[in-house]
């Protein structure tokens, strides 16, 4: 095994881990006041790591040239696309955090460092081509995420959400490990390639159990129904910048990982996992749409919205074709923009005392007080609902198209019907902001960083986004083909 080639392939991960370690030292010697500096440097490190992905992404490099450390790690175009999304989301989350934590006098330099390590874990997850790599990346991401959820340790709800996330996440890790150990026992290998070969032909009950347990563990991480129960509680309790992070980057990583496991490791048993994914997709769409209807809290509402979106993303995976995975990646990219934008808007909704406007009653009549913010939210909500001509519609369109092309017309029709249910609460959001009587609470000014992010994400989901869809589609096609190399 030639280490120099392997080390070159994991260059972005090396950059991230080295900068994480150095920034930890900066934090240790510089003390609490370095929070902002470490945030900026972390964002720079993420940006640098993102630049390293460019050649792989642009040329669509796939195949054995991308295998590092004897096929434990694959730096192919698929991983590069997911990593680019993850790094961008990470930079966005670093931009919004210092203002929020400074107000609560809780900004610590460990926040960006932990976020950097969480991103490193996700980066390893999306490149995993061995169950050991998968687990180690997942655990690195999860451990950092548990701490981030409980970061405001003096706030009981933040501590509660951290604990809840930790206990349920440990349970999911246990399920995943159990499935992996069954697969290892029945196939004799942990590499995706080996499992794929061993699973071809008739599948034994033990293998099937292993496959189901692995999928259940991964479904927990992407918060697909019926493993979604933690999502609203954790999203509501965690500090809002952390929720922004949870709703974007880890979702991308876990979904990309699920796609790779399903199509690579279980690629010879598509029929076995397809029904599981179809069920999870349908149930997520339905529960995400119905569960959100009664919610008054905006963060909980967006949590259900993310469950709902995961359902649509899984339709692309269920198709199990190059087109389906490409559509899934397109939807994922659009989802990250919409989700980032809407959570940043939630962060901007604060009154003069710095208290969050957390419910529908608080934001009623927002358009009279802050028209720019209200219009941006309108675009984001309509996009989440999938109303043309916003980009959210395009995401849903390509996913349904892939479903129809894979002869899953019923699934696509159900998805379209359920997205109409989901549109109810997105439109309610807009109705409350524009047509209800103004609430008494004022809305404070926001910082430039928030505005920049909000405007950029709104511009992406606006019809302007269609300018980039051809090149986005080109990239996702190259990325998706990385998963379909072998017969």
């Amino acid at each position, binding site marked *: 095994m030639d280490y120099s080639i392997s080390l070159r392939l994991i260059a972005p991960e090396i950059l991230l881990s080295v900068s994480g370690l150095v920034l930890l030292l900066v934090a240790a010697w510089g003390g609490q006041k370095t929070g902002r500096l470490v945030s900026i440097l972390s964002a720079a490190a993420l940006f640098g790591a993102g630049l390293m992905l460019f050649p792989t992404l642009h040329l669509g490099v796939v195949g054995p040239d991308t295998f590092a450390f004897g096929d434990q790690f694959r730096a192919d175009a698929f991983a590069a696309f997911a990593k680019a999304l993850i790094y961008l989301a990470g930079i966005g989350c670093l931009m919004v955090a210092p203002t929020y934590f400074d107000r609560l006098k809780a900004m610590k330099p460990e926040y960006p*460092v932990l976020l950097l390590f969480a991103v*490193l874990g996700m980066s390893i997850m999306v490149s995993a081509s061995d169950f050991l790599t998968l687990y180690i990346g997942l655990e690195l991401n999860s*451990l950092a995420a548990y701490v981030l959820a409980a970061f405001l340790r003096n706030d009981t709800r933040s501590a509660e959400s951290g604990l809840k996330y930790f206990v349920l996440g440990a349970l999911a890790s246990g399920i995943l490990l159990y499935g992996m150990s069954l697969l290892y026992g029945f196939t004799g*290998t942990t590499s995706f390639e080996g499992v794929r070969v061993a699973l071809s032909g008739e599948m034994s009950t033990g293998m099937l159990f292993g496959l189901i347990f692995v999928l259940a563990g991964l479904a927990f991480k992407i918060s697909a129904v019926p493993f979604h129960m933690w999502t609203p509680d954790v999203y509501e309790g965690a500090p809002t910048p952390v929720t922004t992070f949870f709703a974007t980057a880890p979702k991308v990583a876990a979904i990309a990982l699920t796609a790779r496991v399903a199509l690579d490791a279980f690629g010879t048993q598509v029929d076995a996992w397809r029904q599981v994914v179809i069920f999870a997709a349908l149930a997520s769409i339905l529960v995400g749409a119905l569960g959100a209807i009664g919610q008054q809290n905006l963060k909980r509402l967006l949590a259900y919205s993310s469950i709902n979106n995961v359902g649509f993303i899984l339709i692309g995976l269920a198709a199990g074709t190059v087109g389906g995975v490409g559509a899934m990646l397109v939807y994922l990219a659009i989802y990250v923009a919409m989700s980032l934008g809407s959570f940043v808007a939630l962060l901007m909704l604060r009154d003069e005392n710095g208290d969050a406007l957390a419910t529908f009653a608080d934001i009623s009549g927002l358009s009279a007080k802050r028209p720019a913010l209200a219009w941006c939210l309108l675009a984001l909500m309509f996009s989440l609902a999938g109303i043309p001509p916003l980009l959210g519609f395009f995401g849903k369109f390509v996913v349904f198209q892939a479903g129809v092309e894979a002869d899953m017309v019923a699934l696509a029709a159900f998805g379209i019907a359920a997205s109409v249910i989901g549109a109810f609460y997105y439109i309610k959001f807009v109705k409350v902001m524009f047509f209800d009587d103004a609430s008494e609470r004022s809305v404070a000014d926001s910082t430039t960083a928030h505005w920049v992010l909000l405007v950029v994400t709104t511009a992406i989901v606006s019809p302007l986004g269609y300018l980039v869809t051809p090149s986005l589609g080109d990239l996702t096609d190259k990325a998706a083909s990385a998963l379909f190399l072998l017969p």
Partner: protein
Amino acid sequence: MIQTIAFYLFAVLVIASAVMVIMARNPVHSVLWLILAFFNAAGLMVLVGAEFIAMLLVVVYVGAVAVLFLFVVMMLDIDFAELRAGFVRNFPLGIAIALVLLAELVLGIGAYQAGNLDLGTPAGDAAPMLGESNIENLGALLYGKYLFLFETAGIILLVAMVGAIVLTHRPPKTQRGHQHIGKQNARRPEDATVMKQPEVGKGVEL
């Protein structure tokens, strides 16, 4: 011959000290008996040629876990007499758990007797043994084939440590009425006192 004698010596001592763990009246003694049991189990591992596991037993279990036990037992004021008082009350539950464990044993042995599970067969193309001993082979694997995962696992431990510190460390706060000797000694008369020459009949302006 010596091996047989050593085996019986270690085996008898493991069982005897394990019995003493639950029989000892003093919980600190229990933990000390447990340490003895670990040492003898390590001896058994050496006998079967698993010297790495023997070392792990001593380093991890004796060095870390048992010492932690000792700390907990000595620092927490647990009234063990009171815990034992519940023995009669919890007796049926204990019996039930014992029966479940017995049933599991019987089932497990029955399943084992019934024949092998249809497990996957190793490909047989595994790398040849690299070194003489288990330790050398494990080391060669961990620092060779699985280097990437091993290093990443190190980062996971670092994140766990940072997380524990972030969530529990509070900046040291000086308590009310705390004496700063350095500050007291550094205080000079000219910082604290003012010399004034008030004119007759007038007050002092400060």
